[in-house]
């Protein structure tokens, strides 16, 4: 079931909320049980077989967690073996459903094998659920989670607001909330949830989806071997960047809002990443819960392990101005690229996702190298702080947009064609209808190598206008977290000490003005439900 569907909005959600509040008024545990049950219905709606696939996996993970708890510190070797088995089981589960077909493809491509590529039903949100279960096992083994029952564990995994597209949550940040939640109607939580949900719905349906109609034909044409011109390539890359931006931002807001209806706060997952002034900053704002997971459960253990080994071998480790090339490569660039490779693979079973992950790994490594090297040749921090942020912003934005072309393109070759187009290597063209209206400017442009093509001038104009407007919204306006900061829209989000003027001006409050404004936004979203579309991030 999609959040942006009539059945969810006008059927499922009202029934779930009514049941939750009615049951909660009698017994809390009934309300929580109801929440688990409806989450299963939500999960099964699209394909009932999904439940049959995921339920045994939940049960096995619960048993493994119990075993880990049982062995505890008394039998660390056995506990470690259970943990490794659990991680292996979850990765195999994910690998079988998500990557088997891709691996067969790779074997066919690389070794000329003749595997018939397996087409499996991919359980919804399997990547999110798998990471969440792995994190749970690690936390149990580390002693960070001690008390849990099957009922609590099932609710933790299945809680429908974050079930299929994140954020990836930790048991220790969710269960204390479920234990404390009153399971009663709370007007303030409801008003905040309503606002977050409908802001998200409008972002998704009003802002993100129309971009798909501009972007898809351009990438499809590149996939057919038609090299895009400069303007088409930029429209494709920028358009897709904004599409996935508002798609993911909208989904994240909806997830926060839905959880809030039940009095639950989810962690931040999306925080204006296109305002980032560096690649490191970008990944602290884009898919925050994934970054947190990969950092905590992959990157940090690798770096820690390698650092210990290097120290044991008497080799220099990573640290400030004395960092050597080898320590930087071994302890920072290598693990970063590996982590981002995993991130790329996690996002999708395809070469383009792998290359996108590697690209981001390299970009992050360059960013880290800059941080290490910059003080050596640019020690003046005042001028650096004045000059670098805007430069860093432009560089980051450009890098992200370029990389997005790889993420979206149907093949790596077509992504390269889009990149060439963005650099002007496929020629520069404008729709003839526009070109012929430019008068003497057209002559100048012709002399510069720009030519007219028989493409739609109206579509070109609409694309430019839409992308420009969305860039202004993206870069110039505060995000929903900032607007609702006084009501802690996500775990730990509080108002900044120095709120920008626009935030102070637009700050959300449960007043009449915002109620009417939200109704307009919500109506725009609901009216846009007619054209159903899937979340881009759902497929991961």
């Amino acid at each position, binding site marked *: 079931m999609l959040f942006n569907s009539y059945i969810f909005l006008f059927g499922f959600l009202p029934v779930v909320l009514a049941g939750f509040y009615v049951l909660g008024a009698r017994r809390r545990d009934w309300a929580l049980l109801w929440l688990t049950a409806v989450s299963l219905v939500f999960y099964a709606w699209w394909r009932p077989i999904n439940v049959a696939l995921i339920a045994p996996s939940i049960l096995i993970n619960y048993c493994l967690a119990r075993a880990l708890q049982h062995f505890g510190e008394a039998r660390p070797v056995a506990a470690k073996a259970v943990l490794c088995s659990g991680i292996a089981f979850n990765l195999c589960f994910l690998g079988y459903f998500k990557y088997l077909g891709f691996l067969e493809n790779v074997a066919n491509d690389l070794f000329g094998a003749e595997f018939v590529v397996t087409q499996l039903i991919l359980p919804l949100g399997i990547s999110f659920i798998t990471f969440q279960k792995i994190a749970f096992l690690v936390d149990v083994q580390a002693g960070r989670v001690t008390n849990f029952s099957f009922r609590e564990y099932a609710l933790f995994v299945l809680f429908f607001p974050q079930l299929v597209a994140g954020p990836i949550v930790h048991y220790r940040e969710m269960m204390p909330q479920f234990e404390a939640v009153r399971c009663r109607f709370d*007007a*303030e939580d*409801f*008003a905040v949830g*309503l606002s977050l949900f409908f802001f998200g719905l409008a972002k998704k*349906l*009003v802002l993100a989806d129309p971009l798909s109609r501009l972007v898809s034909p351009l990438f499809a044409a590149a996939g057919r071997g038609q090299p895009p011109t400069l303007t088409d390539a930029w429209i494709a890359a920028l358009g897709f960047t904004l599409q996935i931006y508002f798609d993911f931002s909208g989904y994240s807001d909806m997830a926060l809002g839905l959880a809030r209806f039940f009095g639950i706060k989810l962690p931040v997952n999306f925080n204006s990443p296109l305002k980032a002034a560096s690649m490191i900053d970008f990944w602290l704002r884009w898919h925050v819960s994934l970054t947190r997971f990969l950092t905590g459960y992959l990157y940090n253990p690798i770096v820690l392990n390698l650092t210990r080994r290097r120290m044991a071998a008497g080799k220099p480790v990573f640290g400030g101005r004395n960092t050597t090339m080898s320590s930087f490569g071994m302890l920072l660039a290598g693990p970063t690229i590996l982590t981002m490779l995993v991130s790329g693979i996690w996002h999708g079973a395809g070469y383009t996702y792998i290359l996108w992950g590697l690209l981001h790994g390299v970009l992050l490594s360059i960013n880290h190298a800059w941080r290490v090297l910059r003080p050596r040749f640019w020690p003046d921090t005042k001028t650096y702080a004045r000059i670098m942020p805007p430069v860093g912003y432009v560089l980051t934005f450009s890098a992200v947009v370029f990389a997005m072309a790889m993420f979206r393109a149907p093949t790596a070759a077509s992504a390269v064609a889009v990149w060439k187009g963005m650099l002007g290597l496929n020629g520069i063209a404008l729709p*003839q*209808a526009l070109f*012929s*209206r430019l008068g003497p400017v057209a002559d100048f442009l012709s002399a510069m190598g720009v030519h007219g093509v*028989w493409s739609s001038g109206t579509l070109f104009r609409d694309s430019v206008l839409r992308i420009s407007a969305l860039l202004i919204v993206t870069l110039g306006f505060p995000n929903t977290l900032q607007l609702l900061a006084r009501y802690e829209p996500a775990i730990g989000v509080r108002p900044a000490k120095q709120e920008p003027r626009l935030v102070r001006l637009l700050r959300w*409050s*449960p*007043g*009449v003005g*915002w*109620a*009417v404004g*939200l*109704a*307009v936004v*919500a*109506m*725009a979203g*609901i*009216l*846009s*439900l*007619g*054209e159903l579309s899937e979340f881009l991030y759902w497929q991961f």
Partner: protein
Amino acid sequence: MDQARRFIWVWVVTMLLLGAAVAVCNLLVDPYDVFGSPRIAGFNRLKPEAKNHSMLAKTYQIERIRPETVMIGSSRVHIGIDADDPAWPATMGIVYNYAIPGGYDASANLLTLREAIATGRVKNAVVFLDFQNFLVPAGPNDGGDEDTRRMLVGPSGAPNPDRARQVASDMFLALFTMGALVDSGATIAAQGGGTVLDLRPNGSSTDADFVNAARSDGMYDIFAQKDEFEAARAEQFAKATRGRTGPTPNLDVVAGMIALCRAHGVALTLVISPSHADALELYWRNGLWDRIEQFKTDLAALVSKDGGGAVTLWDFMGYDRETTEPVPPAGDRRSGTHWFWESTHFKKAYGHILLGRLFGGSTEAVGARLTAENVTERNSAVRLARQAMICGGTVRVLTSLANAPPDGCAR
């Protein structure tokens, strides 16, 4: 009441008011003519936004108008033939233009013809066939789309069980979607003046888009753009038909139309749509002329075999004064054309001539009645006309191939 509770109440009430306002607005403006709301000058008389929802709009229009004569075809007929043209004989009664733009599949013609006949009063059907739909076999059509579900009857002629649900869905979406609201706004805004596209109640469309494009870009650009599109299409057809032999594909659709009309006592007129010499030349130079001649021959044989005297066949795909009219030069935005907007879409003036030939007894040298007996002669006559006009240089085509000497010319 605390602040948050008041917020929720205000939100709920505002939502209800907004929802009602949107529905009333869409109902009154009726941008797709789905509800048949009164057309009021200066408010909603013109329906420019129905252009992207032709099947939706026309299916409800035809059910309201219940015509005695129906036109079936593609955008050529949608734009090029006026259901109110004085050339229609009065005996043909109420005429409705049920041609659907954008259809590159002959089976759409059968679908709309069946729907038209199901409205109950149709006595005459004029079906315009685009030769491009008979060059390669059509892909599978499972008939499961919303256009099929909306129809009064199914393929067997029995009432369509899916219709009620689809109609409810259509009504809901026409009342409660952002697209409908935006189109309502655009409809009201378009009434202010200028040349505005309109889907009229009789199903015919004004040609405002072409008029505006001609005014701003000139006829040359419109022809050149269409020729480029048609050139690519002809090339694809050439690739797809290379080495292919056997009868003309998709004629089963025509056979279905003949059977349908005979079963309901409807007089059927089949018309092979005209194209400008530019388009004809593109298909000629892509080696498709033999296929086109075979299409005409097979069609004539089919009509002779299945028509039972109730079906007539006309061919307007040839070289005459109208289809060879010259295109104004590049950069000329003032000169117009008389008969064609571009190489496949003809103007209503040509539509008038065509109707006169079909039903008015006109003897103008346009098109020809086609029978199994005269089809070979007609094919030869068209070749000779090309020889004279294209090879002879009396007509210059504009296409991208224009600079190349015409091929297949007898010396």
